[in-house]
């Protein structure tokens, strides 16, 4: 079965989605969507670095994403520029530097579109192993971190006063994000990773009464979107990343349809708040 490229792609997509869902919930709760985008864009710099130094791709992408997130945290403390501007600067400059570096490497043939938007054919057995091992690591880390991270998400000071070290939780969370970006890159593509983090989690919000339920539902919706999107990709010969995101969006839109049993007032309020 693993010989079939499509089956490998489905396994990879589901593996990535199962991890991205729960992590994406925190991205939404902590309002870090743009932050995730910036880390994902920096992955292209990691790819260029990996090709130039001939180091393992996963390691380079993870390292660059981690460095960027630490850099950003440091810059935020200085405080003259808003986080928004800092993210804009880092997001686009890392992407641009990555593209420029790749352009210099005339000897290496790079499938740029594949990296940017994901490639259904690109998932090797090794990639699959890395996705599932890496994904398991991320989920284990998130489970261990759950209470302090959730408490710090609700209120950092409360978490600090009651001895849960929110600073450490945030740091580990960023490393987990970097790892997810590294493993999700091949199948989703770096430009669309954030969508897989956010859209299933946003879809799950409406049906969830607790944070834990939302995380599980997000993983489920993500996996569903991955399978659906990959079939779409196979059937219509479309790139895998965008197809998965379109499927995720489809689920999100379906979930918006008002059902009598749901409280609509709450949903409208949620929608309004997230326009910013």
């Amino acid at each position, binding site marked *: 079965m693993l010989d079939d490229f499509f089956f490998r792609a489905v396994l990879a997509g589901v593996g990535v989605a199962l991890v991205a869902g729960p992590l994406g919930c925190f991205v939404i709760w902590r309002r870090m969507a743009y932050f995730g985008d910036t880390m994902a864009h920096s992955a292209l710099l990691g790819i260029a670095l990996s090709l130039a130094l001939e180091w393992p791709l996963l390691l380079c992408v993870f390292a660059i994403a981690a460095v960027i997130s630490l850099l950003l945290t440091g810059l935020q403390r200085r405080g003259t520029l808003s986080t928004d501007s800092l993210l804009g600067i880092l997001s686009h400059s890392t992407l641009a530097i990555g593209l420029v570096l790749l352009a210099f490497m005339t000897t290496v043939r790079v499938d740029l579109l594949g990296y940017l938007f994901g490639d259904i054919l690109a998932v090797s057995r090794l990639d699959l192993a890395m996705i599932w091992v890496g994904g398991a690591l991320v989920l284990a880390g998130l489970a261990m971190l759950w209470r302090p991270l959730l408490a710090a998400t*609700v209120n950092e000071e409360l*978490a600090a006063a009651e001895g849960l070290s929110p600073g450490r939780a945030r740091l580990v969370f960023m490393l987990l994000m970097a790892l997810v970006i590294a493993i999700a890159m091949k199948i989703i593509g770096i430009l669309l990773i954030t969508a897989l983090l956010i859209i299933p989690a946003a879809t799950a919000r409406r049906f969830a*009464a607790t944070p834990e339920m939302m995380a599980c539902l997000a993983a489920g919706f993500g996996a569903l979107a991955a399978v659906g999107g990959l079939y779409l990709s196979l059937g219509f010969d479309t790139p895998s990343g965008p197809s998965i995101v379109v499927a995720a969006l489809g689920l999100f839109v379906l979930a918006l349809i008002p059902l009598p049993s749901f409280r609509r007032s709450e949903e409208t309020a949620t929608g309004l*708040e997230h326009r910013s």
Partner: protein
Amino acid sequence: MKFPTVDFMRQQSTAALIGIRSAGVRRSGRWLVRGIDLDIHPGEILTLIGPNGSGKTTTAKMAVGIIEPDEGRVERSRKLVVGYVPQKLAVDRSLPLSVDRMMTLTTRADRRSVDAALDRVGIRHLSRAPVHDLSGGEFQRALLARAILRKPNLLVLDEPVQGVDFSGEIALYELISELRESEGCAILLISHDLHVVMAKTDRVLCLNGHVCCEGTPSSVAASPAYKQLFGERAAESLAVYRHHHDHTHLPDGRIAYSDGSTAEHGACGHGHHGHGDDHHHPVGTQDNAHRHGDQAGHRERQDDHA
């Protein structure tokens, strides 16, 4: 003087939960607070008052370890368990959080303890409700329940009646004072309007970048100086009194007096004599137009009526 329980008297003689020793916090070259000396004893209600920006919240945050002091030190008992009710807590609407789930945010607890804590503050019927749907008073009660569920020996309440209407305010203060007796915990209360809570407080600390004065409200109310200053009726009703500090704190930590002279920080020379209305301190201290030139850490102590 009315200490609520004999227990409290006994507990107070044991070691302090938190000891702050000439501590200060500095941000962007300015001292938010400096020269703070403070012990918090088991079972007491200690209230911090002071105008906006006087460092009440900073002092409380330093006490429980949310921020580290830039000078001096803070000692915490190993037995210290803090229950914290922050000044502002806005739960993002994207986070589905029921009252039940919020109870166990920082600690594990079984169903029965959660119900008991919610019962204690009178909102057990709301246990399934999303926190976003609670009114201001209900939310404050939920936060209180969450804090006492940890079985703290120190409850820190930063302006706990914000966003609560007046009758709710009185009920909430009643509850806080009951909690001290039922839970046996010390309470560090931050308030800028003390007239309701005053009778329940054991000790009051007035801050204005440093400790201005300190004392028990009852002794203060009974003191001749207070009566002289405000009259018998004010003393009886523990009415709000207003005073203005006759100095401003310069960015470098020095103090400029209204007569134009300056002094090193902590040379605490307030004449609490005026009836200016820039801020008010409901607590009665008999700081009767005194001006003292001694150094940092000085404060006016008003221990129990001698």
